[in-house]
């Protein structure tokens, strides 16, 4: 099953989803498609004008363009997802630094789709890490 991860660029969540037999939907995969596509204009542009229009499906015109641009990449991933894993209480430098509003919108989109999801806490010690991995493993095994 396809599992969306929040933050979508997380190494830990990506690895755990793959380790327990599912396909992670990540930001890196979406960006890879864009940056190796010859249609994309010169660097460092990796979002096309069409992407920004697609973002309108997920956020209104009055929403800042940065949020729409991000949602143009993240939104289709949420649409494809069969389940989601959200990491909460993470330090500020963990995840896509820059836009907390996008993060909130993505959580809203996940809840709106009514797909199974789990919220885990960022581990600060060994015991918390064991709880986090056990919860993720249990959730992913339960999806089959």
């Amino acid at each position, binding site marked *: 099953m396809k599992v969306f991860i929040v*933050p979508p*660029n*997380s*190494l*830990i969540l*990506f*690895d*755990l989803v*793959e*380790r327990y037999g599912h396909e992670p939907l*990540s*930001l*890196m*995969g*979406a*960006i*890879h498609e864009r*940056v*190796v596509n010859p249609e994309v204009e010169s*660097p*460092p542009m990796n979002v096309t004008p069409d992407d920004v229009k697609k973002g309108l499906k997920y956020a209104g015109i009055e929403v800042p363009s940065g949020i729409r641009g991000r949602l143009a990449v993240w939104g289709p991933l949420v649409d494809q997802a069969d389940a989601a894993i959200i990491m909460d*209480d993470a*330090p500020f*430098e*963990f*995840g*896509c*630094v820059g836009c907390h509003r996008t993060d909130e919108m993505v959580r809203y989109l996940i809840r709106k789709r009514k797909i199974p999801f789990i919220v885990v*806490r*960022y*581990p600060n*010690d*060994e*015991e*918390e*890490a*064991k*709880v*986090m*991995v*056990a*919860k993720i*493993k249990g959730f992913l095994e339960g999806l089959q």
Partner: protein
Amino acid sequence: MAKEFETRMIVISPSSSVTPDQVTRLVHSLSLEITVKETCYGAMIEGSKEDVRNALIAIRKLDPDRIFTKVRGFPIGDTRRCRAHHGSRPGFTQLEKEWECLRLVDKGVSAAERGEPVRERPPPRKLSVKRLKEIVDEVSK
């Protein structure tokens, strides 16, 4: 390069005794058509999805619970990201943070493999206003 190629980051947990050099040498010895670059955190590999998957299976065997991997958006040496070409490296804070956290996560993975029972602690509670006032009074004396 084939259209369906993939770039992967191999990140070794700080608690592992495996070195990036070992990973790189192993990938070279597999005789697969993939590019490998040794880095401070592990290695990056790039090639067809099939070859990359085969290489990952072999790399994980070095230390199954302490070697982590994720897809990388930009190809190896891409001028938009490679520091040799003065590219920006915006994902580095995230990678650094997660690399530090891997020493905890690998313990979790090992515990999960053993089926060790875990007990979740309640989340930390916020300080009450009453207690805050008491602290302010204590400090103000």
